[in-house]
């Protein structure tokens, strides 16, 4: 990794350097000088014969490996650094001039760049020649358009480049308004044109050029050299940290609506799920639950007994999320406002008074979350004795944290509003991260540091992954919005944010029944799975569309619940090592050029391939199954398909095309209950999908599902399942950890198997017993009946 930092030596006043995003000061290592002349130096970067060539006139940096240039800085000479100047001076006021910065990067051999969310656009970024650049500026956008580089709610200034040879990353650490221009010498060329180049031998090396422009701050950029996608993820995680490990229940299904009207409504919806036998874990309350949009309060008529309501949910082992937005009603009878005002914690306007703007409550103040004292105070407001009516099964949603200011420029804060000494323009994109951070810290503190928090936020920045989940904001009930949810979450996944989802059903407007069903089927296989709807739309709880559609939605939600052990394990890895949960295909098949721009299907971990149906009236979809010489198994029919092919799959309204990779083992819990907590002690079914070489491997991660004990006291189970030489075994991957589970293995389903004469189970105490089995010769599926072994222990099953 290479960091390039450019600042003024003696500025008129300090320029803003982004704090609190890097998890620590990245370790430095001395570079050795390889050679020098009057115009520059050649430095060794250490590994893999990598060199850094610094040229002085004109200034440029080239990073080379062997004889190849990996990346060049300022090769186009677009470096700009508007140093601070006094533009205007009188006896009181001195204005400093513009302070924007810019730098260009050239990526020889690269045709594909990704990342820089949040945009409602394709996964593979487009060349922006002749159009607007991609804009990074956190905004509350009303009814956003898809396939558009316009700024949305969040901003993560991280771009990945990828070619069959190498994956790299550029992390532009700047929180001001930022624009990214992309041009490519191959974009826009037709296939025929490229062929012609090839035939004529005139083909130039493909190259992508990128230019970053920010309004203020300094140039501080990290070049992550990969070379594999996994390496880039680890490198980025070492800078900004990994995904917060959510409580298991947060990975289950969330039922939201603006608004569930009152306690009776909440009870009726909760009962509706039981009456229709559909599981759910969280019910959400939007802004109308408060007393006049005063967050941390309850409407006294609609929610007079919040604890009774929460207890009712707790009795069913379910949970609630209430909204707490960062705009505070200016009202001298409101405790939160009075305290923030008296402590001087509000963002200030340029003339020094409290900054005020219009939002849901009317005139509102905006707490200065960049101030650590303010954050500590905010966090303390989540204590059970401060947030009246709250309980341990109540979590938090931070909406509007761009921040949204209805009467502000572009519906956000004035750029000259002051956060201490800094203008909003310097740190605008960072505000949302701080809101989510302060809230997550509050939830941790209220439990004495024991419980993992769950906080959803709409605005985010690099590093936000450490504090919770994000969603794609106020989408619409349209097929295009269902489709775009896939690239939007994939783009976030690539830059550290794994816990992403889109409002199931679409927020604005009312979905057709078919769209709603398809959205549930898609959302069931995306990380954050929450249905949400606008206040003005008709109700759309899953049972309001006739028994057939209720059954379709029930089935989709149940598939999610059955797969929770796998989701949990993927999130453990995301937390542990920064590997994304939802992955573009090229991440696992980096040499397969066919996958580079694919964003209508994705992988969960390495082992599940999902191709949701996102076309209205679809009769079939064509899924691409990657991997020459590999096989994939349809998880519903167990039908085996070869890799490296486009597979046409006929679909009906009940189809959710999902495939398990041959060579993998996935644990599921087949006993779907009314919430994930109710499934805690239930047994596992292992799905062993054999590779053509009759091999398979998988994992199982178990802990208490909600505390930090997995981390602080190493209380977890992490096991490796391996199938080789006709034997399936479970062994401990974390010998230093300790945890016991009641869960056991109830069934083992081996896909692509042949019929054994007998199956012998050997348990950890050396005992042997014969397992009964069934063999389906038409599908080559072997089902081992009831091994009954505890999921935390060693065991082996030998097939003969």
């Amino acid at each position: 990794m290479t960091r390039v930092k450019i600042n003024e030596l003696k500025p008129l006043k300090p320029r803003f350097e982004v704090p609190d995003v890097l998890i620590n000061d990245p370790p430095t290592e001395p570079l050795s000088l390889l050679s020098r002349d009057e115009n520059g130096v050649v430095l060794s970067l250490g590994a893999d014969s990598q060199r850094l060539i610094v040229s002085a006139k004109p200034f440029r940096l080239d990073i080379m490996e062997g004889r190849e240039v990996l990346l060049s800085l300022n090769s186009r000479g677009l470096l700009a650094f508007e140093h601070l100047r006094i533009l205007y001076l009188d006896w009181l006021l001195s204005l400093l001039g513009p302070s924007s910065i810019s730098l260009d990067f050239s990526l020889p051999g690269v045709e594909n760049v990704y990342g820089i969310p949040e945009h409602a656009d394709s996964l593979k970024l487009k060349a922006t020649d002749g159009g607007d650049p991609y804009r990074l500026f956190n905004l509350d956008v009303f009814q956003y358009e898809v396939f558009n580089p316009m700024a949305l709610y969040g901003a993560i200034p991280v771009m990945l480049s990828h070619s069959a040879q190498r994956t790299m990353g550029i992390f532009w650490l700047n929180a001001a308004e930022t624009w990214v221009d992309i041009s490519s010498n191959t974009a826009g060329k037709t296939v025929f044109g490229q062929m012609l180049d090839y035939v004529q031998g005139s083909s130039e090396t493909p190259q992508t050029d990128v230019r970053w422009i920010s309004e203020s701050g300094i140039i501080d950029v990290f070049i992550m050299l990969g070379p594999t996608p996994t390496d880039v993820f680890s490198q980025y995680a070492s800078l900004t940290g990994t995904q917060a490990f959510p409580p298991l229940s947060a990975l289950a299904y969330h039922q939201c609506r603006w608004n569930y009207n009152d306690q009776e409504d909440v009870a009726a919806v909760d009962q509706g799920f039981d009456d229709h036998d559909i599981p759910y874990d969280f019910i959400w309350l939007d802004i109308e639950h408060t007393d006049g949009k005063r967050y941390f309060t309850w409407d006294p008529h609609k929610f007079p007994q919040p604890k009774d309501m929460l207890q009712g949910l707790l009795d069913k082992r379910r949970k609630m999320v209430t909204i707490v937005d960062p705009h505070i009603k200016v009202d001298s009878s409101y405790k939160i406002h009075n305290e923030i005002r008296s402590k001087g914690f509000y963002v200030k306007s340029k003339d020094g008074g409290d900054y005020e703007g219009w939002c849901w409550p009317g005139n509102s103040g905006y707490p200065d979350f960049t101030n650590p004292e303010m954050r500590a105070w905010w966090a303390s407001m989540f204590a059970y004795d401060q947030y009246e009516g709250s309980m341990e099964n109540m979590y938090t949603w931070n909406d509007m944290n761009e921040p949204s200011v209805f009467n502000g420029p572009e519906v956000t804060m004035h750029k000259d509003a002051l956060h201490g000494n800094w203008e909003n323009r310097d740190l605008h994109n960072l505000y949302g991260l701080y809101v989510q951070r302060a809230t997550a810290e509050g939830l941790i503190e209220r439990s004495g540091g024991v419980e993992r928090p769950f906080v959803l936020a709409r605005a985010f920045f690099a590093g936000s992954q450490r504090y919770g989940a994000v969603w794609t904001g106020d989408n619409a009930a349209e097929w295009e919005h269902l489709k775009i949810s896939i690239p939007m979450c994939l783009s976030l996944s690539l830059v550290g944010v794994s816990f992403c989802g889109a409002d199931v059903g679409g927020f604005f407007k009312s979905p057709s029944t078919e769209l709603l069903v398809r959205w549930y089927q898609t959302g069931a296989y995306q990380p954050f799975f929450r249905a949400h709807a606008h206040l003005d739309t008709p109700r759309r709880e899953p049972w309001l569309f006739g028994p057939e559609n209720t059954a379709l939605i029930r089935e989709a939600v149940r598939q999610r619940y059955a797969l929770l052990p796998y989701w949990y394990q993927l999130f453990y890895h995301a937390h542990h090592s920064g590997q994304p949960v939802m992955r573009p295909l090229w991440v696992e098949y980096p040499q397969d050029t066919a996958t580079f721009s694919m964003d209508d299907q994705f992988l969960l971990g390495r082992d599940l391939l999902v191709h949701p149906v996102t076309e209205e009236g679809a009769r079939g979809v064509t899924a691409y199954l990657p991997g020459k010489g590999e096989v994939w198994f349809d998880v519903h029919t167990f039908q085996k398909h070869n890799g490296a092919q486009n597979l046409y799959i006929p679909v009906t309204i009940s189809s959710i095309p999902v495939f398990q990779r041959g060579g993998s083992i996935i644990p599921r819990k087949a006993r779907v209950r009314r919430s994930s907590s109710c499934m805690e002690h239930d047994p596992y079914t292992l799905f062993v999908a054999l590779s053509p070489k009759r091999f398979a491997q998988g994992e199982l991660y178990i802990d208490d599902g909600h505390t930090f004990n997995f981390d602080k006291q190493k209380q977890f189970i992490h096991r490796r399942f391996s199938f080789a030489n006709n034997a399936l075994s479970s062994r401990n991957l974390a010998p230093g950890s300790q945890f016991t589970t009641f869960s056991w293995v109830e069934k083992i389903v081996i896909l692509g198997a042949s019929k054994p004469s007998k199956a012998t189970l050997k348990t950890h105490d050396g005992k042997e017993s014969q397992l009964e089995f069934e063999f389906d010769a038409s599908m080559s599926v072997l089902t081992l009946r009831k091994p009954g072994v505890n999921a935390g222990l060693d065991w082996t099953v030998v097939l003969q």
Partner: protein
Amino acid sequence: MSCALLLLLMSLALAMGTGAAVEIQRPRGVPLSKRQFYEENKPFTCLDGSSTIPFDRVNDDYCDCRDGSDEPGTAACPNGSFHCTNAGFRPAFIPSSRINDGICDCCDTTDEYNSGATCQNTCREMGRKERESLQIMAEITKEGFLLKQQLIHEAKRGQEDKQGKLTELQGSKKGLEEKVEALRTVKETAEDPEKEAKERHLKAWEEQKELLRMEKDKTRMAEAFLELDDDADGYVSVAELQSHLELDPDSDGSLSETETQVSQGQSEPPAPVETPQEESRDFVSDHDSDHYPEDYAGEEEEDVEDDEEDDHDEEEEEEKVTPEKREDDEVSMPPYDTETQSLIDGTYSHLQSLICDPECISICRNLEKEIGFDFGPSAEFAYLYSQCYELSTSEYIYRLCPFNRVSQKPKFGGSETNLGLWGQWAGPEGNLYSVMKYDHGQGCWQGPNRSTTVKLTCGKETVVTSTSEPSRCEYLMEFTTPAVCQEPASLDEVLHGHTEL
């Protein structure tokens, strides 16, 4: 995980106060009615016949049968169901996914035998409460049903009275209309034959137009009457007129009693054109024509009401009746000789005033409207007609005027909002008269027009018991009335009907 045979001690004596204690052995979660399929020590055949397994695999916490029938007492099968006996209360089936999930579902606690959940047996308490509430309900139903019989009786008498009166009024009106027709003939013969020949075409058209205008006036007047008749009692009171400032001739902002009397005393209808055009048309087009016949409302009017987009003929006809146009036409009408003209004018306007007598027309109109409504199979809902019922909540006063409209008025100032006009009966098949639907209320911003669903339940009193807005601009009202009370089953039947024997 071994076969769990449950010894069930069912004390019917405790539950029902009769019978003796019995002991029945059966696997956990199996209802008595299916006991014979689970014979100990004999192979068990799945209830769908799909396979046969050794008996020790029943309730062994592994799902062997596709229909889930081998695991009635465990959560092993995704499609299984568990039977709780619930002695003292009502037996029930729960999905087997609720067995040992840490949540007490069966009041007899039998679903949580291995989860660590501490459940209290609440069956007897629940049974007692249910019996009490059933008893209360039965009493209400009984009394309500008696009241309903009375309502039916009254409705029948009322209906007959009204029909009689209507026939009478219509008869006299028809007489008047015949006279008008005769007068028209007189008019025709009185006219200069030459001129007539010349202008026959124009005149025919004029007459037709005049009739049309009369009809229109009548309609408008009736609407104006309804508009003025705030309490929907069929009469316009002085107080009601005073509440309508548009009738204030001296524009002093209030109607004096003298002024109201003047308006009432006029032989011409009280300025019907001042009724906001939009509102009266809505009222007519959306509701009236659908629900009661208008034998004096000509085809033309029907057409106008039907569909504005339909074609321009209708639009032209609509135009004809606007006051401005009418005056123009009258100017161009050829003059008759003075004698005939004064004779015709005199008689004509006299007859017209008779036909247009506001009281007569409004009564006619109301009677027809009322007779045309569907007041239920035995007209038991007729008593609700022209009544209004209110419910006060913390913010609003809700007002339900059955067969008319639902509205909402803020308690502390602000104007009334129309939550829907009478639409139709909207109960499920077989119980059509359990739900009323009011729609085409005031439009919502970025949303639909407001509408209200009124759920009717049996009660002695006629009251609105609750209102809510489950979805934006879709209101739900609960309303009790004796008119929906069904003939009560005997209390014994109610109490014992649910008990498994």
